[in-house]
């Protein structure tokens, strides 16, 4: 015996009715799409929906239907206000039809019921969704259902300023061999600290500017956790893992960096604009960012010769226990529970069209993100971009994503608070780890596995 939800029945009835109405009058749709963390370079996240709407209208005209779609777009440059806007709008039923957000939001938002699973509206075995990368589709899934369609991919990278490396004694061949050394685990984070210390002593960079990590919270900091052997998820049972030894080593790494004088104790919370300006002009020795920063630095910060000035590697391992790694934080197109089932079906079709390789490549190359599907590598615009092809080849195969979980946010917040506390010296590393563990256990109980040290 089956349970047919009331909404589905209404949808079927609506479908019947709309079937009879088809051809009689022009169908007008207004589809709204909001994207978070998107500046002007990433405007194709929403423009792709406009292009898709135009395509859909043309295809409908050929089929003999008269469809008129108005797409309302909004870009949010930050994340905090965007996530707040989405959750509060969803409660009042005014969320946009299509949401472009990070995949880590799928867990909490799916649980809260503000999303429609895209799997119920699209066919993943048909073009263009059948050529999307499997790991990206997995990243867009949560708890047995595919909730979103991948919008872009990227990888978080470690960068070095080539000229400073040369000045402290690296030959060109050694610099070119560095990525492989990082991959093999021969060049570690502590080797990096020694190198930037040499750069500072040689006067190539100002004091406390040798190493410039990310100035605010982000998925990037989980890379350092992985560099010291931490896993975010237990592969056997899918539970979240809190590895105290890895966390402790990671906090200690930043404390050591402060002690060596290559980064200030009060570094976190700095200004992003000045960070971009500094790293793109050689004021830092080593830093880490993302593949999409290429577009920012070459277009806005005046870095004309990226490959001549910068070399890039995975995030190096920290110790024997860890590994070189990179985290990818794909954004996904999500369908909200706003509007009728027809609105959602149309939104799903628009998102499907927007995932066409040629259309997605517009976003990928303009904002220097990476391809979401195999065929996109063949699109001329993508293939002729050196950074896009190199990053796809050298970095993407080694990346993993943050887990999709409604509870991961608690662990993330605890990790970052502990990092801030130990980095600024407000508490010792062991106290910070204890405090983080206490927060995680009191909020999640046995939903998270605590790994003690020494494993």
């Amino acid at each position, binding site marked *: 015996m089956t349970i047919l*939800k009331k909404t589905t029945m209404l949808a079927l009835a609506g479908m*019947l009715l709309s079937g009879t109405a088809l051809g009689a009058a022009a169908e007008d749709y207004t589809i709204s799409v909001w994207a978070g963390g998107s500046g002007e370079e990433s405007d194709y996240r929403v423009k792709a929906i406009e292009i898709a709407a135009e395509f859909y209208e043309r295809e409908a005209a050929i089929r003999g239907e008269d469809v008129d779609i108005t797409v309302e777009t909004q870009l949010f440059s930050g994340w905090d206000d965007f996530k707040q806007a989405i959750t509060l709008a969803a409660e009042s039923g005014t969320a946009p039809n299509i949401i472009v957000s990070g995949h*880590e939001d799928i*867990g909490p*938002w799916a649980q809260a019921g503000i999303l429609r699973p895209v799997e119920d509206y699209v066919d993943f075995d048909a073009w263009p969704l059948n050529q999307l990368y499997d790991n990206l589709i997995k990243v867009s899934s949560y*708890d047995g*259902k595919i909730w979103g369609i991948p919008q872009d991919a990227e990888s978080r990278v470690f960068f070095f300023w080539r000229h400073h490396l040369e000045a402290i004694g690296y030959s060109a061949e050694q610099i070119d061999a560095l990525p492989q050394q990082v991959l093999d685990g021969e060049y570690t984070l502590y080797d990096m600290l020694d190198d930037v210390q040499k750069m500072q002593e040689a006067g190539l960079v100002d004091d406390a500017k040798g190493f410039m990590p990310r100035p605010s919270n982000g998925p990037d900091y989980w890379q350092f956790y992985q560099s010291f052997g931490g896993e975010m998820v237990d592969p056997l049972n899918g539970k979240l893992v809190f590895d105290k030894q890895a966390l402790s080593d990671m906090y200690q790494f930043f404390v050591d960096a402060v002690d060596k004088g290559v980064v200030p104790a009060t570094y976190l919370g700095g200004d992003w604009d000045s960070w971009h300006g500094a790293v793109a002009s050689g004021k830092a020795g080593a830093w880490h960012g993302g593949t999409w920063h290429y577009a920012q630095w070459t277009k806005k910060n005046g870095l004309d010769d990226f490959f001549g000035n910068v070399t890039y590697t995975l995030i190096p391992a920290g110790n024997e226990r860890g590994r070189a790694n990179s985290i990818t934080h794909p954004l996904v197109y999500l369908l909200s529970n706003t509007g009728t089932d027809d609105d959602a*079906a149309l939104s799903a079709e628009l998102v499907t069209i927007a995932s066409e390789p040629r259309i997605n490549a517009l976003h990928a190359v303009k904002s220097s993100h990476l391809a979401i599907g195999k065929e996109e590598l063949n699109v001329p615009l993508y293939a002729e971009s050196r950074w896009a092809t190199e990053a796809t080849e050298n970095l993407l195969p080694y990346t993993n994503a943050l887990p999709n979980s409604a509870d991961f946010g608690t662990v993330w*917040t605890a990790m970052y608070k502990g990092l801030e506390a130990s*980095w600024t010296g407000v508490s010792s590393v062991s106290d910070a780890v204890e405090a983080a563990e206490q927060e995680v256990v009191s909020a999640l109980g046995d939903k998270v596995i605590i790994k003690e040290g020494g494993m």
Partner: protein
Amino acid sequence: MRSRTSRLGLLMISPALLLLAVFFFAPAVLTGVFSFTNMSSSTGITGGAWVITPNLLKLLPDRGVDASTIEALGVESYSVDEAGLAAARAAGVDEAFVDEIEARLAGRNYATDSDFLSALKDLGSRPRRIRDLKLAMEPFTRSILNVRFPGKAEARTAIEAVAPGIDETQLNTILAESYTGWVWTTDNFRTIASSAKTWRIILNTVFYVATTLTLFHLLLGLFLAVTTFYLPKKLGAVFTVIWLLPRLTPVVLYAIMWKWFTWDDGFLAILAAELGLPSFNYMKGSVPTAWTIVIAVNGFIGASFGMIIFSGAIRAIPMQQLWASEVDGASRWQQVRYIILPQLRWPILFVTSYQTLSLLTSYAEIWLTTNGGPGNTTTVWALDAFQTALLNYSGSLQYGLGAAMALVLVAIGLMLAIVYLRLFRFDELVARPKIEF
């Protein structure tokens, strides 16, 4: 003789009462209510649904549900049988399509939805829209996984349908664990009490309120009021306006100006470099300077409040007293100490109690300047409650916990107000005069 309450008066005041109730009391009451829930952006505000998911099935063995029930709940299949076909017809799937399904696929079972979908895609009379195809698959499903049941009764019926004869306690456990909405709980207060950072934030808040209040609101406010009183009128007016500017400037602009002043290559840093002092980001570069900036930013705004109140109060002092004191040879300082200050008792009480509560709840300036940093060294209670409830980059917004923190603040504010009123003997101020007139 007591005055009668005028009915007309009540009528006239009712719009104000309504606004007060809706925008003043209702939020405070709701905050109190929400603080006893675990509401967050994962649970949603308007209630939840019951949904059984694969992750939940992995959790159930630890909760005492037996393996056979879990297996029954996790069954996923599509079967084209009489019941399914009837349900499809009843739900309004296209008649021709259902006939073709019956003709070509009757009696088949499919383990996954993609298998069933590819079978359906082979049929000639399938609907064009993918959504319609997916809707047509629904009547044939035998799975309750990832189905959102809007009510407990529906969920119960569905579970009993796939796992008949299920034990009542296990059923209740499953229903409790599968609920996605918020529940009533006192855990928020337990979390606040046992969290390591709570003490730090309490100390920060006490330090912030006490220092800003004393140094700027009271002392600087008094100083400004007294000095502008003694200055020639026009000059006094100029200084009054200057000191009002921080309060009049939009807070975001004001914060940005402070950032320009204190940032890495800002005015202070350049000046310090010229003078040979340490040149760094004065706003976030070190804990003492961060605190200085935070207190200064709020203090310069707050000083104008005291200045205005005290100015008005000073002007209410009869001039004859000051003239008489001048005749007796009193210096300015003696005038201030013996004539002006004693008569400012009630204004000082007012400013103290009003600004304590105002400072307790102020977080905007701190958020826009140091954002509670470096680390959480300048985070105050109000800022933490705001960030917990409404601004959380990595986690979900935790409305319940934030409301609990706000409730604590409300309680402390009320207590302090009562303490102040007692301390400054407010009842004396509002006592009926002892003589009749």
